[in-house]
């Protein structure tokens, strides 16, 4: 008996807020009446689970049994790929697999599965082709990335569509509880029990746990070219924070190959979001050290310095050597400071103006440098020896007249920290004066860096709580 499932694609409710809109809403594979038997919509065909096919015997054109169905293969990349080959295990021969073409199957819905070919036409299985994915070997029970939900899932079953042309198409992966109970052989029992107890449970919905194949990225290590094609299409569209979380959930080998395959600008945005321990692993395992150095240049200097500080000396030196001289200098300055001091926390990525510039000049300059600057709110006015004389923020610039001199528009600066100040002192200053950033000034009054509030957030939050609790 084949199972007939009518499938509606629907976004599952999720605990976590995803920033991207869920692509599942935009895609409806098929909506049809819940038909049994003859009621099945011929435009859609019949759905069948991979786990059910796996137990079936395959028979040849004259009905002689060949063996049990062992595996099916598809070829990538196709949004809804059809089954190319069947792998059949003849009884009593543990290391022999016979291959039949998908086109040689007379009917997918019958049990046993009848072929149009005879045994002598079948050849034994040979080396895998690079674009081939075997469903059982590479997908069943394995982890995949669900691009629509931005997380890593484990495949409990595969949902196949017997299309009206007679070929079998991989439509969904099943990551739901129902897939699990089906594999355990309890599906009917549990279904009956659930109908009694909670007839409207989500578990009973026919789409429970199904994810469209086009939102799935297998994480197996396969040739990079193939992966790249898949990744740039689907994974690259995720928010960097989501992508970072996915990377953290993957086994280390897959994590590296997925990261390696990301487009450069995506990789650069994802890297700072990843757990620092893994940042280090991802950078050192980059196949191309130039790319690793470029990634570091793209990161804010303080984040880059943090990653470098964790690396072994040899590798850190190597990477810094490959960076652009100015980025390298910024990073090395930061590396010279203790981690929990203002010097270690600060970034050198800041905007300075001279007091003799006008507001219009300042805007002109901001337009030029803005693409490379992370924090675009507070700017510093310095003298010819780079000593801090004042501060001016974006709001003030907007409100100022174009001809105003910055010297007059700025606030003469008194709030500042020293490179050796502790992180908690910096946090206290930021919290007390309600600043988004604070300049770091050395003994000679020279502006050496800036600390933004997010860099001391972990220090600021306890302060805020203490205040709230009046401790």
């Amino acid at each position, binding site marked *: 008996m084949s199972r007939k499932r009518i499938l509606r694609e629907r976004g599952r409710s999720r605990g976590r807020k995803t920033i991207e809109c869920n692509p599942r809403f935009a895609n409806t594979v098929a909506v049809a009446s819940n038909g049994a038997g003859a009621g099945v919509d011929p435009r859609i065909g019949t759905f069948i689970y991979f786990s059910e096919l796996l137990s079936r015997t395959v028979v040849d054109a004259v009905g002689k049994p060949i063996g049990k169905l062992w595996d099916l293969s598809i070829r990538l990349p196709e949004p809804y790929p059809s089954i190319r080959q069947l792998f059949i295990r003849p009884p009593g021969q543990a290391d022999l697999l016979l291959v039949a073409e998908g086109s040689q199957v007379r009917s997918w819905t019958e049990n046993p599965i009848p072929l149009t070919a005879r045994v002598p036409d079948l050849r034994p299985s040979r080396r895998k082709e690079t674009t081939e994915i075997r469903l059982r070997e590479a997908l069943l029970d394995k982890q995949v990335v669900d691009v629509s939900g931005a997380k890593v899932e484990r495949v409990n079953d595969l949902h196949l569509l017997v299309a009206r042309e007679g070929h079998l198409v991989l439509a969904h992966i099943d990551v739901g509880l129902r897939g699990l109970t089906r594999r355990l052989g309890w599906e009917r029992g549990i279904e009956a029990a659930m109908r009694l107890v909670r007839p409207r449970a989500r578990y009973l919905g026919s789409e429970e746990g199904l994810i469209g194949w086009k939102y799935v990225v297998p994480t197996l290590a396969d040739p990079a070219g193939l992966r790249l094609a898949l990744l740039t299409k689907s994974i690259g569209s995720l928010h960097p924070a989501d992508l970072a979380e996915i990377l953290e959930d993957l086994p280390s080998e*897959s994590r590296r190959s997925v990261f390696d395959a990301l487009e450069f600008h995506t990789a650069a945005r994802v890297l700072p979001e990843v757990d620092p321990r893994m940042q280090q692993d991802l950078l050192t395992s980059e196949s191309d050290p130039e790319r690793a150095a470029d990634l570091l240049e793209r990161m804010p200097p303080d984040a880059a310095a943090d990653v470098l500080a964790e690396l072994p000396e040899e590798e850190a030196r190597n990477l810094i050597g490959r960076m652009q001289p100015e980025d390298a200098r910024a990073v090395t300055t930061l590396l010279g400071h203790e981690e929990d001091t203002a010097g270690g926390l600060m970034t050198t990525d800041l905007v300075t103006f001279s007091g003799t510039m006008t507001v219009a000049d300042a805007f002109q300059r901001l337009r030029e440098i803005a693409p490379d600057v992370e924090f675009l709110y507070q700017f510093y006015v310095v003298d010819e020896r780079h000593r801090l004389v004042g501060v001016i923020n974006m709001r003030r610039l907007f409100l100022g007249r174009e001809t105003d001199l910055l010297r007059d528009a700025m606030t003469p600066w008194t709030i500042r920290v020293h490179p050796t100040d502790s992180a908690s002192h910096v946090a206290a200053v930021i919290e007390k004066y309600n600043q988004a950033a604070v300049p770091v000034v050395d003994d000679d009054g020279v502006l050496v860096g800036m600390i933004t509030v997010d860099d001391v957030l972990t220090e600021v939050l306890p302060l805020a709580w203490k205040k709230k609790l009046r401790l």
Partner: protein
Amino acid sequence: MEEKAPALSACAAGARGIRWKQVVLFLGVIGPGLITANVDNDAGGITTYSLAGAQFGTRMLWTLIPITIALVVVQEMAARMGAVTGKGLADLIRENFGVKLTFYLMLALLASNYGNTVSEFAGVAASMEIFGVPKWISVPLVAFAIWLLVVRGTYRLVERVFLVACVFYFVYPVSALLAHPDWKAVLHDTVIPSRISFDSGYVGMLVALVGTTIAPWMQFYLQSSVVEKGIHKDRYWMTRWDVVSGCIVTDVVAFFIIVACAATLYAHGIAITSAADAARSLEPLAGRYAAALFAFGLLNASVFSAAILPLATVYYVCEAFGWEAGVDKKFGEARAFYSIYTAMIVLGAAVVLWPGFPLIRVMFLSQLANGIALPLVLVFMLLLVNREELMGDQVNGRAFNAVAWITTVVMIALTLLLVANGFGLKLGA
């Protein structure tokens, strides 16, 4: 000027602590092995060691060396698999042996770890009662504190608390020193097996010692934490030392517990039935401090293990079935994770407070589950670690394999003996 940047950078990097680099790196990698090893000396472990010392004096000490070797062999494989594949053991079993086997194995592990959790709470109750705190207060309080730490705490905090708990195991060596044992006899019996007998009491104790030291959940926990730490193949040698030193620490602690009980309880012919008994009986013999330290050690071990065991269990159950897991996730994101974790702690603590609950019977059933799971886990591990497509050139060497298989076979035989022994003794009683 520009070209100077690289050289300059190296100096600056040096200022930030190249000298400390190796140390920091090692401390960064260390942890999984040490924590696993110390959880191993949980309430059940301490009870077994105390009983071994009280009943057989120093006669059982020789077993510690082979046990340590077996422990190192098994744990090293788990850690290596974690570092090379980047996947947890539950993960690998699911991917290579299918969903059915995985499911029933997880069920057995859940049962055995639940039993262990119950014994940890019993340990909390017993040790706090020595300090005069009734179990009605101590057990719910500890259960709640543990639950809160994991559910509301962050990963970093949890790991730090755990590492601090590890430090408190030093109370056992101090206890042993206060008991003034005959060191010559102790050393002799540690190195040279003597007065081995084959009566059921001796064999039963031998089996219990091995069983309490090598448990299936440890391999899962260790491998997952190696993965979680992101330890790479290249830095695996440091983890190997972490594992080896952890195993040695485990058995050194066991050694001192046995010595402390042998020098006092055995020497004076005092019979005990639990670790709390041991602590109480130590007072007239070794002084108030030795007894208090012993009891404190039991408390620390029980609390520590009561926190880690349910956590480890829920981690690998979720891993096997692909459910969201992690102490950094919110309840809504990881429902299964938090539900199983909470249930294990609440039910574990409740059973201890339930008057007239057949505690011994439950513990025996969990031991049975353990006995079923352990052979499976060990055989799975050996099959997995020898798969070239998983491990590459990191598969077991021939000599290592021989030792590992012998360990596995002996472990299986002893575990079956333990279960059979339990059937004979505990169900009959």
